[in-house]
Structures are given as structure tokens and as C-alpha cells.
């Protein structure tokens, strides 16, 4: 109880969610004193997203904002072009449309622009407490676990800094609906891993539970009926709550592994998470049964005993996880990347060992054992 009630929590983003949340952006821009935002948009997404945003901006000054179409992994010259555009347009805020890498890229652009850093100077960034430009993130449901967090990952450049939290997160049902079920599942599995790490963390607290419990509810309620826009918006809400809570507790073993894999580009963070998460959850069951029960009570909205029984019968979440892991195994058996996971786990163990995180090491041992056993049966990744 003593440790549970001690925490340091900060959630900077204001969250605006709803069927017409885009319309609130005009007021948000006024509130933040923004005159000349730059709209960053990932060109790979449906153009209807941009149209919906433009329509919602109506006749406000922001409707005349320059739009910068970006690719998935902008080159150095593209970075320079956008920075030049920000400067020449008198940009005083970033309005960033879409989830995934574009939000990380926007955070990095904001840092570089506000602190006058050239792309060639990275990864060095000067220490500064000066605020960045306001960043309004308009998300779709294909999340990577970082959009609402104070983290960014652009190629191999990683950063965690409270200064890069977006100021506002906008979740609008009209922006949701364009991603595939597979992409939605990837997003959900990352959220679920973040929530489980939050529960497991030494720094878990009532505040963390206040954010993760609604996220779990949404994931549980909508896992099997995610076709409607409302359900997808609920998924996205869950992802945002999980990211903000997870930002506060820090990386656990799954997210550490997942990010290492993502950087290596051997597989996506979601694929790795889908492999490892079932073992992590079983570990939760073995070591912290109270928490475990609570997790599933929240997911299934059943009483504790019923939820526990439900899980043991491999219904709901467990079934989904098993299916994901099996699908992954099947896909992975042909890729021949088996040694990579062992190498990455070893690397992660070294990282964790340096910080003397005994509990995490113990957990990783379990994951390694399980993963090795799986690998021996036909390969995972």
C-alpha cells in the first residue's frame, strides 16, 4: 500500500474525443493562440481524412494552413524541406493527421525547429526547457504505442522527454475506419502489453489504474466487434490511455524487446508483442494473482471469480492472444529469422542487468525459456 500510494504522474495532453471532435480543433487553436499551423499528413492514408479535417476547420484562419504530405520514413532532405517550410510559413503549431511514425516525425521536427537543430547534428540535442510549438495530434486507430506519449522513434533515433508530449489528442470517429482488422489487432496488442506492464510496474498506483482500467474495458468490450467506427474510436481511446499511463511507469520487458525489434526492422513491434505477451500474462497469473484477476475483471466486466473462470476456459482475451500467437508462428516459420529473437533477448537482458532490475530479469528468464521452447518447435519470428 505504501509504495502504491507514492507516485509522480503527469499527463500533459488534453484529450478530445467524439463523433465531431474535429470541430473542436478551431476552439483549441484559439485557446492555444495559434494563427498559422502547419498540417502534416501521411500521404499513405485515405484522402478523406484530410478532407474531413479541412471541412471541420471551416472558415477559421487554420483552414488556410499549408499542408505538408509526408512519406512513411522521410529522408534527410525531406526533413530539411519541411523545416524550411515551417520557417517560411511562420508556423506556430503543428497539426498532425494520422497515427504511427508521422507523430514521431512531427515530435522530432518540432524539437529541431524549436531548438534550431540541424538534421546533421542528431542525435545530439541541446538541453533546454523552452517549450516547443503546440502539437495537436489527430489520430487514427493504427497506433504504434507512442503517439500520445512523451516518446519518439524515427529510424534509429529514440527519445523520451516530457517536452515532446503532444498538447492535444483528437479522436474523431470520421478519421477512424480506414485500417484493416490486422492493423487494428496490432494496435490493440501493443495497448494491452502496455497496460499489463503498467499493472506489473513497481511504480503502479491508483492513478495508473484510473487510466488503464477504462482502457482494458474498451479493449475487452470491443475485441470481438471492432468493425464499427464507434468501436474503433473506443480502441483508439484505449490506446491513448494506455500510452499515457505507460509513459509514466516506463518500459517493461515487452516494450523494450518490441522497440529493439522495431529499430532492427526484423519485425514489427506488434508481431513481437503478440509472441511474448501470452507468456507475460501467464507470468502475471503465477506471480500476482490479485492483479491478474483484476485485469480480467476489468476486461470482461464479470465478477472476479467469473472472469477468472472465463479466462481459464480460454475465452475472450486468452483466446484472442492464442490465436494471434499461432498466426504469428505460422507466418514466422517460413522467414528463417529464428536466431534474431535469441540475440535480441540477450541484448535486452544486458540492458536490464545494468540497471539491476532483478524482477525484470527473472521475468525475462521465463520469457526466454518459453520463447526458446516455441522456437524449438518451429520458429517464431
Amino acid at each position, binding site marked *: 500500500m505504501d509504495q502504491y*500510494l507514492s507516485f509522480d504522474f503527469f499527463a500533459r495532453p488534453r484529450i478530445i474525443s467524439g463523433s465531431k471532435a474535429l470541430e473542436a480543433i478551431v476552439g483549441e487553436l484559439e485557446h*492555444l493562440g495559434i494563427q498559422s499551423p502547419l498540417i502534416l499528413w501521411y500521404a499513405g492514408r485515405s484522402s478523406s481524412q484530410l478532407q474531413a479535417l479541412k471541412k471541420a476547420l471551416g472558415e477559421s484562419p487554420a483552414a488556410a494552413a499549408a499542408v505538408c504530405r509526408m512519406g512513411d520514413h522521410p529522408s534527410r532532405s525531406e526533413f530539411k524541406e519541411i523545416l524550411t517550410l515551417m520557417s517560411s510559413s511562420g508556423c506556430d503549431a503543428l497539426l498532425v493527421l494520422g497515427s504511427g511514425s508521422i507523430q514521431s516525425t512531427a515530435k522530432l521536427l518540432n524539437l529541431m525547429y524549436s531548438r534550431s537543430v540541424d538534421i546533421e547534428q542528431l542525435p545530439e540535442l541541446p538541453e533546454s526547457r523552452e517549450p516547443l510549438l503546440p502539437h495537436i495530434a489527430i489520430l487514427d486507430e493504427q497506433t504504434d504505442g507512442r503517439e500520445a506519449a512523451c516518446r519518439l522513434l524515427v529510424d534509429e533515433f529514440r527519445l523520451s522527454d516530457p517536452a515532446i508530449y503532444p498538447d492535444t489528442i483528437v479522436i474523431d470517429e470520421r478519421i477512424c475506419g480506414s485500417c484493416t482488422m490486422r492493423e487494428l489487432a496490432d494496435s490493440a496488442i501493443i495497448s494491452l502489453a502496455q497496460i499489463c506492464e503498467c499493472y506489473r510496474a513497481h511504480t503502479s498506483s491508483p492513478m495508473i489504474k484510473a487510466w488503464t482500467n477504462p482502457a482494458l474495458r474498451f479493449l475487452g468490450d470491443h475485441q470481438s466487434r471492432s468493425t464499427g467506427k464507434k468501436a474503433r474510436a473506443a480502441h483508439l481511446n484505449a490506446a491513448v490511455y494506455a500510452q499515457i499511463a505507460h509513459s509514466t511507469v516506463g518500459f517493461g520487458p515487452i516494450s523494450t524487446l518490441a522497440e529493439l525489434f522495431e529499430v532492427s526492422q526484423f519485425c514489427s513491434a506488434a508481431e513481437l508483442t503478440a509472441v511474448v505477451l501470452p507468456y507475460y500474462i501467464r507470468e502475471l497469473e503465477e506471480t500476482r494473482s490479485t492483479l491478474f484477476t483484476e485485469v480480467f475483471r476489468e476486461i470482461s466486466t464479470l465478477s472476479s471469480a467469473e472472469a477468472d473462470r472465463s479466462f481459464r476456459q480460454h475465452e475472450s482475451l486468452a483466446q484472442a492472444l492464442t490465436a494471434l500467437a499461432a498466426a504469428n508462428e505460422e507466418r514466422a516459420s517460413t522467414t528463417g529469422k529464428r536466431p534474431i529473437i535469441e540475440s535480441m533477448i540477450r541484448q535486452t537482458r544486458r540492458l536490464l542487468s545494468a540497471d539491476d532490475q532483478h524482477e525484470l530479469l527473472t521475468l525475462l528468464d521465463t520469457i526466454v525459456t518459453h520463447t526458446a521452447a516455441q522456437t524449438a518447435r518451429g520458429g517464431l519470428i
Partner: protein
Amino acid sequence: MRLPDYFHFSMRVRLIAGYEALERLPELLSDLSCQHPLILTDQNVTEAGLLELVDNVLTRAAVSSACTRMITPADSQAEAVNAAAAAYAAADCDGIIALGGGSVIDMAKGVTLLLSCDPQISDIRAYARHSCSHLTTIPCVAIPTTSGTGSEVTRTAEITDTPGTQMLRFSSETLQCSAALIDPRMSTTLPSVLSASTGMDALSHAFEAYTGLGKNPLSDGLSVQAIELISAHLEQVTTEPADLTARMAMAVGSTMAGQASDNSPPGITHAIAHALSDLCGVHHGSSVSILLPYGLEYNEHKITGELEELARLITGGTSAEDAIAYLRALNEQLSATTEGAHKTRLHDITDQSGAAAVRPEHLPLVARRVLGDPLQFYNPEQFEYQDVLNLLEAAYWGYPLDRTLITQGKR
């Protein structure tokens, strides 16, 4: 869990909670680039030795000599806010430490508002019911010494125009503190009766946030955690004031309830409490304690599901009536542990001279005032004069609300 058609949620106050959270004050000031803070507090806090605790921490960090101190009136007054703002400017301060209950923190917010907006305006009254959209530029660290108002995390402030007159109510993003330090040592000297009433105030924030029209998934998450913490520890802090674990739980619970309430505003309970405060001078926590079960009864037909969920959470019961009965029983228990000082009906509340603060002839005036309170927009059921009057009469005499007399619920 239902996803509302629209909601927005904001919680930008950094929270540092812990048994020695106060020790992190110098670090926090440094993070906020604050080297010369103005410490605002009141006489009661000073006499309780809490200013000394803060001073000791600052002295060890070699910050103390750079501080300006100001002892304010126990109730937040507009003139005192103006004076504090002038003192801040004269001493060239670069941040505020608000050490106290809701009144002191509200005053600090008033100073922040006054100094963040138009430099030509030197009277806080100019901003009453008038929005100031500037973002906070003055670092403000709140160190709450009661566990009730949640003011350390809210975007609202209540400041008295002149003593004995109507409260001025302010609402602005500018009013949100930069950070709050939640340390249980700050509330161990709080008298039992105030622990009870402020704790019930916090519980009312969580209940009304969970059942109000502005509810959203995150305000629900905060409310549930707050209700669990407060219901498990409120009685304990009235019988064992020095129990640090219970104090910590109450401090965290009330802060979370404040955040819930800030994002899902309260309804009829607080609307009536405002009117009772303005017209009869009744302490906010005292009136809210009494009114909470009545407010929930008034809305019961609209919030049955929510009350059933809360009943399961705190009583193991299954009905809306169980949740309401729990609150009445809690009030009775708190009355017993405070030897009757915690009141359970409006009739028993007295003013400083010992005379009845609320008299039967006040009730129609209070009911009329309630109809003008903006909180009615967040209440599940509409406000109707006769209905509010029926509620007030029931709360005055201490009998359960006869819901057959409530007209709105029948429509």
C-alpha cells in the same frame, strides 16, 4: 463501458505523491525554473507547524532565504488576492507555493490569473465569470493541507468578494496549478470534524462525477479509484488522525476525485451547497456531506445503473439504494466518531455564535438561488423549484427524500 458521443479531458497538473513528497519541493521548483517563490499560506496552517516543515525543506536546499512569505485570511478574499499579486510583483517573485486548504490554493490561483492576463487590471473581481484564455505562465505549486476540495488540480477557484457576500467563481485553464505535492504529513493536524467534512466533500466529487452528464471514461476511472480509497479510509482519519497510511490514501483519493470532478462537473449537491454557502454562510464540506445522499436520491431514476456499480464497489450490495444507504450510514458513523460535531442534517448546523445557520425561512431562498446555478447543466435530472425545495426540507429535517413528491422524475 460507454464511449460518450463527445468529451474532452485535461489533467495537466504534475502530481507528486508520497510519504516524503515534500522533500521533492526544491527539485520541483528547479524543474519549474522558480528561484524566488511567494509562499501563500494562512494562520491555521502556520500555527499547525506546517509552514515550518516547508521552511525546513527549503532551508536544507538553500532556497529558503529567497522566499517571500504571506499569511492570508482563512477564507479566500478578493482584496487579499490583489494584495498578494502586488506583493509578488514588488518582490520580483517567479512562482507561487500555495500551502493550505482550498481557500489558500484558490487565492494562489487568483494571483496567477491576475498576473497572467491583462497587466492593466489589478483587481481580481474584473475576471469574475469572465474567461481569460491565456495559458498559465506563472509556476504554482500547491501543497494541500486538507483532503477535500481537490483545488490543487482543478481549473476553478472560489474567491469572496467581501466577507459575508456571494462567492465569485472563476474558471479558466490559467487557474490550473503547475504541480501538486501530496504528502500525508500535511493533513495529520486537521481536526477530526474537518477531516470528516472535507473527506465527504471529496467523496461527493467522485460520486457526482461518476453519475453526472459530463462523465467520460477517464473521469470514471478516477472516480472509481477515489471512491475505493476514500470509503476505505475516511472513518480511520477521524479516529486516528496521525495514521499516515490513511492520510495518504485520503490525500490521493481526494486529489483524484478533484480531477474527476474537474472533467465531469458536479450537479445538484454542489449547486445547493453553493447557495447555502452564499446565503447562509454554511461551510461547503458540511453541507455537501449532508446533501450527497439526497442529491443522489433526487437523480436516482436517471442514474440507477451507475449507483448499482458503485454499490458493488463499496458495499458489496447490488442496488442503487444500497449506495445511498451506505452514504447515510457513513455520515452517521462520522457523526459518532466526531462526538456529534459532524452534522447529518441542515437543521443542526450552527454559525460561529452557536445560532442555527440555516432556518426554515431560508429554504425557499436557497431553492430559488439553486435554479440559477450553472451546475444544473451537468445534473442528470432537471432542477424544478418545488423539487429542490422538497429536497432541502428533507435534508433540513434529516428524513429520506420522498421521491413520490419529485415531479421531474415522473415526466
